[in-house]
């Protein structure tokens, strides 16, 4: 049975590590739904968050193959019930029609988003939420006329004292 799972891991913050991680996924035929990378407080470490849709055997292999990599320091499958997940979306929509613009602004407001830029023919909004929320928001915006979107991929932390 396929399950969407979020895996977080710490890596050495040095050149080539992102390539090696991506290459391992490619080489073993594992699909990545999303991946995000960012620096940590410790300058020599970075944190990667990968979302995968895989069955139990593949999931186990992904974790083990990641753990085996020399530059991967720590790997964890995040417990969905104990994890805060966020993804950020930037979306550019048609706004030359005032009705459409009004509707876009309303939706952005409902989703607690921000308007980053408004021009005569387009506007850019920022929305943050769980990936499903972002999906729903995009669906809502489709009739208005989406020109371009950019998603960051998921970033996640477990609640409480748990840490990687």
């Amino acid at each position, binding site marked *: 049975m396929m399950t969407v799972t979020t895996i977080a891991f710490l890596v050495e913050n040095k050149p080539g590590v992102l390539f090696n991680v991506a290459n391992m996924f490619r*080489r073993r035929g594992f699909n990545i739904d999303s991946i995000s990378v960012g620096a940590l407080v410790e300058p020599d470490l970075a944190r990667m968050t990968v979302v995968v849709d895989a069955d139990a*055997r593949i999931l186990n*292999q992904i974790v083990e193959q990641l753990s085996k990599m020399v530059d991967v320091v720590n790997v964890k499958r995040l417990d969905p019930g104990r994890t805060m997940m966020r993804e950020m979306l930037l979306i550019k929509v048609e706004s030359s029609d005032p009705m459409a613009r009004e509707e876009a602004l309303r939706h952005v407001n409902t989703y607690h988003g921000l308007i980053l830029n408004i021009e005569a023919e387009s506007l850019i909004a920022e929305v943050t939420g769980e990936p499903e929320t972002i999906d729903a928001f995009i669906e809502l915006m489709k009739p208005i006329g989406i020109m371009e979107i950019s998603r960051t991929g998921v970033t996640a932390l477990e609640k409480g004292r748990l840490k990687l």
Partner: protein
Amino acid sequence: MVEMSGAKAFVKSLERENVDIMFGVNGGAVLPICDELYYSDVRFVLARHEQGASHMADGYARASGRVGVCMATSGPGATNLVTGIATANIDSAPMVAFTGQVPQSMIGSDAFQEVDIIGITASAAKYNIQVRSPSEIPHAVKSAFYIASTGRQGAVLVDLPKDCLVESGEMVFPDKVEFRGYNLNPHPNPREMDWAATLLAKARRPVILAGGGVIAADASENLMQLASLMMAPVATTLMGKGSIPNDHPLCSGLCGMHGTGASNMLMSEADVILVVGARMSDRTTAKLDEFNREAKVVHIDIDRSEIDKNVETVTRVIGDAKLALQGITERLSRALQTSSKNEEWMKRMEHFRKHYEVPEQPSNPHLKATQVVKALRGALPRDALVTTEVGQNQMWAALYFDVYGPRTFFSSGGLGTMGWGFPAAIGVKAARPEVPVVDIAGDGSFGMTENNLATCVEDDLPVIVVVLNNRILGMVAQWQRLFYGHRYKAVELGTTPDFVKLAEAYGAVGVKPTTTTDFEEAVRQAVKDNVTTVIDVSIDPEENVFPMVPAGMGLTDIILEVSPEESAPPAAQGGRDKAEIVAED
């Protein structure tokens, strides 16, 4: 801290790792290194092609248990090493490959002899490092040896831009390196060993599958001790050959696509399978869906990612195979009140041994490969070391050449690299100059790296090459006979070269015996003279390797022979038969 050039620090780092021999080819980007080696005692064996150098280092590593070292220049020198890196890595041989690189100022500019060897080897090596300043060299070399030789061993590449070799820097030579993400704990969890022992104690039809991990962990004695305690037959993978002597009463031989009937059948009837240091490759398990589903599998491995990768286990023991086998044996000898006789199961092994004996193939003027391989065994001293090429020669050697201990039989198991055996034999000879080293070859494989004859002769590393010469790419031809209606395409090699003349052209000895007696005599002479000798033995191109499990079939679908009609050429069969089974590879 001391200031010196990167090249000097590099050679000093090798010396600190006790490297006494390295294999390679010189070139523009590594000139500074060779200029430092000029003043060093490290022996440099000059290969005639970098692929050969990489296999020599690999053979040296497998025979000695120490890290094998090879070096090449940038660009094509580096890419020519790649086959050797992939071969060593998949067979978990400890090897470090050094490549020259264009100066950092030119990296990314598509400079002359520039190639992205770090990108290219990312999925072929265990790890790779590109040096970015002269001062990083000692740490990089130390790290490469450390990672190659620990945990599940493998191949590590270090890429050395020329400016880092030429320029000087402050050098610190570390005694120890650490990687946060590289956690080595060879000690198995006691709880895991308890579970394993409990399960094994209840086994009524136990089988042990021994892989290369047993040899890497120097655990042959422990393997045999546990096998005897349980009275469990031991089947081996190709990499595990030698982990238990072929003449040991519990050794059932190779398991898998060309496994013995005994090993394949016992594996399929077992109630508990103890896998030790094997990665359950498709060549060992045959069709996974049909691999014994009833058996409880216990898996010992140093590499956690191998557990449940292909075959689902009931329990696992992560750690060094020697420690794991010791721990399980201790527990089991307490659990088993009286030592098991397992008579029924032993009878079953005897039954399979007899029942699956391969019938003699019809006689014709050619020598039989199986006879040649057996005769070779008889003519060689017991402690001789053997490498193989890949294909029929390899499987005949695996099935019919008995070996009596670990690190005596060497083969490219995972990658299946034709042309590996000969240069690897040169590396083996460098590691063990006191014993005869033989490459059991086919004419196709030998042709791929035969230029290394020059290295044998010039560097005084005498190797005996037995060419099982069938003038065809034998294993491919066997598949074309069995699964493609005997339609030979791109397999016939013709009668060139003349291997005797070829040997002589390189200053080696070439002989062409036509009888078994002459062959044995040629082998004895080559051993006695200790000179590089190519023994060209003409065999029947139609001879098949049996037993065989066709690809895509289960372990018990064993073919022992084919009727003459089945292997007849297409004219007799009336062309292509649409209904024929074309096996998967």
